[in-house]
């Protein structure tokens, strides 16, 4: 006989141990020596997934339908971890950066920190989880009752015993609630992370695993001599043998895949799973190990499910055969319930009842503790997660909006937050109890769990779509969630209430008001029989279909506001913006540091605020003494700190209350766009400037090249007369007996070539003067005829030598101009020398002339002197005509033919004419000679 006192004592002792572990975990975290910061603890904490449903329910499911009954629930998470880890990693990264506190916070934050979405997700989560919660209450109270009546394994199904069960369940619920309250909200500080809790949950995962493996080993090797023996014996019983093969038909097939899908979603969308995988994650890298450690755990905890089921069936079928009532009531296919004379045996609790039947007192107690571990773990984490959501996303947003509460004026709200959380934990568990009280007895553990899984699966489009598709909008997410939720209510919850007798059975058979089309068991006339849909598959099909359709459809036809747009980018491109999310602040304006600090203190408490702000100051090199105005970065940081405590939607509301400016409205956005426009214009200008610079650089390069060419040309031109001078001087020196005529001629050439040298040097110097603008003009009134005459006198010898026919075409009339005579002579000499150089070598002809011309411009008549120098040489091509006046240019350049002198003569000429108010140009045709014209203003 196991005394109840002992059971209760052990139970409370176990709870005490959990507290100790949690306390130790928190202490270590405070000391900076986190015990949970390793992938093994992380993977174990994820095993909070395995609840009483797994611990007891799997055995029942395996007894009813073999491996198909339970395996998909564990294959789903395995698949999700192994194949879907990039999704999980992205969610973890996003949550860490945005200090996400819960699944509701995550979805709301993605859709523009929408309080509506946060509230909707919270309501769906709470209502969805209630059946699941009731499963745990049922498991603990049933197992407690069973072990209390040790060694009697039969559960009475009388009204009194039922109400006794319910009384037990109520006590269990109350105890669970108190335990969760104390456990989850021990600290006055409200944080999103609970290190001690994680440590305790990891410990619970070890306990439940060892417990189930112990039962398995006992049955397999204690009662039978190994797997082989057990399976052989089982195969002898027809009812068990039929479980050996998987019955494949439309129903098992779709049901199997449906469960697989739901489990894949549940592993990260269930509030407690999100809490453990995402919120409590210390290091993103832990996921890498958990990806195989967690599936390994699932494998281990499932290994003995079938042996336990078979062992239980073998034992109780044998008992059944000798019990008259049971023998009669045993149906063809085992439904999991055996009705004995003294009461019933539920396959869900085989692991416990078999041990009791075999008088394994100690082991049975250990299994009870294992089951309690599984159930309490779930309840604690789930209620902490849900209460956070209820507080942050449902209650606080409402309270903050109620002006009469004057919450803004309260100096410390962290107490209020804790109270709200505690109350919500109590209420959630109470709801779970009520569901158990009225509904659960009609369902097995597994089927109730499926209702909850279907509810949380509704988050899938909003979450997955939200992190991969920037176009997903708040409206799309909201419509999808609500539609999916309503269909869930209608197709799963409503029938379960109907089953419990709250609604008329007529609704389930004929549809509401007899409208078959709206029948909740085959909605919209879906032929569930043909498709092999069970009620869960049917519900999942319709809820996910409408959810996804509305999510995508409404998203495509609705627009995002600025906040949504920003959050969408932050979420989808999280790996791109990881480091700069704080900079990409949405707040254009600033707040006073004092206001911000006060706000933080109200929710976080003074110590944590001080810590957080001094850390921020260290990182950003800020002296709080001097900094009075918080910039956008700090405001954004404060909002994130606050989001860690009260969720992003509420944090937004609170920060908005102290920040002067509203978040960006249309005006500001236009302003920013304007600035962007400015930047674009500026960059275009910059681009243009760069191009100009490049062009200038090209010109400089060209100039450089020309200068090099100029130098080489000038040296060439200098070398030519020097050659004559030197050669002839040497000849004169070496030949003292040279005849007088030759001597005279040679020395004459030497003198002439020396003069040529001087001219060249003067040209170069003139050019340098022109370039630097140092020329001094000696302007006088002069008759241009004199200039021409003087020029021809200077070049006379050159003309004579080349035997050139020079004709002068000077009118009798004097042409008086104002000018520098020497410079104008230089112009004429230049032009005549050029003509001499280029005119036909055999029959050279040069014409020089001048005449007056009247040019009418507008109403004015201007009189000009027009001068020309014409030769009959090779001419200048049209192309070259444009460049002959440019400095360093030569009409005939480089290797082809002779250069036109230094390449600066015409440049100097042009400059002189320009300075006299005239114009110079050339008119020429190749091989027909060239004519240089220039004009000078005539004096009246």
């Amino acid at each position, binding site marked *: 006989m196991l005394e109840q006192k002992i059971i209760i004592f052990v139970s409370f002792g176990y709870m005490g141990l959990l507290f100790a572990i949690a306390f130790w975990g928190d202490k270590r975290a405070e000391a900076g020596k986190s015990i949970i910061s390793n992938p093994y603890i992380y993977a174990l904490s994820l095993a909070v997934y395995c609840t009483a449903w797994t611990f007891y329910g799997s055995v029942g499911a395996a007894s009813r339908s073999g491996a198909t009954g339970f395996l998909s629930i564990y294959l789903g998470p395995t698949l999700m971890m192994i194949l879907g880890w990039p999704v999980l990693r992205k969610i973890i990264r996003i949550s860490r950066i945005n200090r996400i506190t819960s699944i509701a916070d995550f979805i709301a934050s993605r859709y523009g920190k929408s309080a509506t979405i946060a509230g909707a997700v919270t309501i769906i989560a709470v209502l969805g989880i209630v059946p699941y919660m009731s499963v745990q209450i049922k498991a603990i109270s049933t197992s407690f009752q069973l072990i209390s009546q040790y060694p009697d394994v039969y559960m009475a199904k009388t009204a009194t015993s039922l109400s006794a069960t319910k009384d037990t369940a109520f006590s269990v619920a109350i105890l669970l609630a108190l335990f969760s309250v104390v456990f989850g909200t021990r600290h006055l500080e409200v944080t999103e992370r609970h290190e001690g809790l994680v440590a305790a949950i990891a410990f619970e995962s070890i306990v439940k695993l060892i417990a189930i493996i112990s039962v398995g080993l006992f049955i397999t090797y204690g009662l039978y001599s190994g797997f082989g023996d057990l399976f052989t014996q089982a195969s002898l019983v027809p009812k068990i043998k039929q479980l050996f093969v998987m019955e494949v038909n439309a129903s098992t097939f779709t049901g199997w895949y449906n469960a697989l899908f739901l489990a894949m979603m549940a592993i990260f969308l269930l509030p407690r799973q999100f809490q453990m995988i995402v919120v409590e994650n210390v290091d993103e890298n832990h996921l890498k190990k958990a990806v195989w450690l967690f599936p390994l755990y699932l494998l281990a905890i499932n290994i003995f499910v079938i042996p336990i089921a078979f062992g239980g069936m073998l034992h109780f079928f044998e008992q059944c055969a000798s019990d008259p009532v049971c023998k009669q009531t045993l149906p063809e296919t085992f439904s999991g319930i055996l009705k004995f004379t003294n009461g019933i045996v539920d396959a869900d609790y085989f692991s416990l009842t078999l041990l009791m039947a075999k008088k394994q007192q100690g082991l049975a107690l250990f299994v009870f503790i294992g089951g309690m571990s599984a159930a309490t773990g779930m309840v604690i984490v789930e209620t902490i997660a849900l209460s956070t959501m209820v507080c942050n996303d449902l209650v606080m947003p409402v309270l903050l909006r109620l002006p009469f509460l004057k919450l803004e004026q309260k100096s410390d709200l962290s107490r209020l937050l804790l109270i709200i959380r505690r109350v919500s934990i109590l209420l959630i568990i109470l709801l779970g109890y009520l569901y158990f009280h009225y509904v659960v007895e009609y369902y097995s553990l597994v089927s109730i769990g499926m209702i909850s899984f279907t509810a949380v699966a509704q988050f899938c489009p909003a979450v997955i779509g939200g992190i991969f598709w920037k176009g997903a909008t708040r409206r799309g997410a909201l419509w999808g969630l609500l539609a999916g939720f309503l269909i869930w209510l209608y197709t799963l919850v409503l029938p379960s209430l109907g089953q419990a007798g709250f609604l008329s059975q007529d609704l389930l058979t004929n549809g509401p008001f007899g409208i078959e089309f709206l029948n909740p068991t085959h909605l919209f006339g879906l032929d569930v029989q043909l498709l092999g849909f069970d009620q869960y598959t049917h519900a999942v099909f319709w809820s996910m279909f409408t959810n996804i359709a509305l999510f995508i459809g409404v998203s495509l036809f609705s627009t995002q506001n600025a906040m949504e747009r920003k959050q969408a980018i932050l979420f989808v491109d999280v790996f791109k913006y990881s480091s700069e999310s704080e900079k990409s602040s949405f707040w254009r304006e600033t707040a006073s540091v004092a206001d911000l600090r006060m706000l933080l203190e109200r929710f976080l408490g003074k110590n944590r605020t001080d810590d957080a702000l001094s850390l921020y100051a260290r990182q950003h090199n800020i002296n709080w003494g001097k900094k009075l105005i918080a910039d956008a970065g700090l405001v954004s940081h404060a909002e994130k700190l606050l989001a860690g405590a009260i969720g992003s939607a509420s944090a937004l509301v609170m920060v908005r209350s102290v920040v002067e400016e509203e978040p960006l409205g249309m005006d500001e956005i236009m302003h920013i766009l304007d600035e962007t426009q400015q930047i674009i214009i500026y960059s275009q200008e910059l681009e243009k400037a760069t191009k100009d610079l490049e062009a200038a650089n090209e010109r400089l390069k060209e100039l450089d090249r020309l200068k090099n060419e100029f130098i*080489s040309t000038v*040296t*060439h*031109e200098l*070398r*030519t*007369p*020097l*050659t*004559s*001078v*030197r*050669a*002839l001087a*040497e*000849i004169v020196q*070496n*030949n003292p007996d040279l005849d007088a005529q*030759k001597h005279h*001629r*040679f020395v004459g*050439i030497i003198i*002439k*070539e020396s003069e040529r040298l001087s001219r060249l040097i003067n040209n170069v110097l003139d050019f340098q003067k022109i370039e630097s603008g140092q020329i001094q003009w000696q302007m006088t009134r002069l008759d241009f005829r004199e200039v021409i005459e003087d020029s021809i006198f200077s070049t006379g010898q050159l003309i004579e*030598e080349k035997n050139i026919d020079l004709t002068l075409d000077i009118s009798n009339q004097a042409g008086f101009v104002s000018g520098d005579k020497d410079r104008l002579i230089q112009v004429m000499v230049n032009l005549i020398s050029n003509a001499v150089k280029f005119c036909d*070598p055999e029959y050279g002809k040069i014409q020089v002339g001048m005449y007056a011309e009247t040019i009418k411009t507008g109403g004015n008549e201007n009189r000009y002197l027009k001068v020309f120098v014409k030769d009959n040489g*090779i001419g200048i091509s049209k192309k070259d005509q444009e460049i002959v006046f440019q400095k360093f240019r030569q009409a005939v350049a480089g*290797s*082809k*033919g*002779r*250069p036109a002198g230094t390449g600066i003569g015409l440049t100097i000429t042009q400059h002189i004419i320009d300075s006299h108010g005239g114009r110079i140009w050339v008119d020429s045709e190749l091989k027909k000679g060239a004519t240089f014209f220039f004009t000078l203003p005539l004096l009246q």
Partner: protein
Amino acid sequence: MKKKILIVDDEPNIIVPLKFLMKQNNYDVQTAETGEKALDLISSWQPDLILLDIMLPGMDGYEVCQKIRQEKEFNQIKIVFLSAMARSIDIAKGMGLAADDYITKPFATDYVVNKIKELLTDT
């Protein structure tokens, strides 16, 4: 028999001393002011050596050299560039056209005379 030297230059005042020097050293001399004229004289007169300027009106000295070297019958003709273009690239270009020498202006008369003697006694 006197060796024949063709002077190709467009500067009369450079032809004067060159002509004097060649005559003084007992060479037969002809002069040309353009490349075209030079080529005519080469065919008709067949000089032994050409003193070739580069910067000429029309066809330049390089082209003249190239044209001569293309004809097998003129293979024996010595070509000496005599140019004011003194950059190494100009010299390399001239020597690359199979000229026998390249003398830059201004030159030392002795050097030119000796170089010509040297080239003409080789054969």
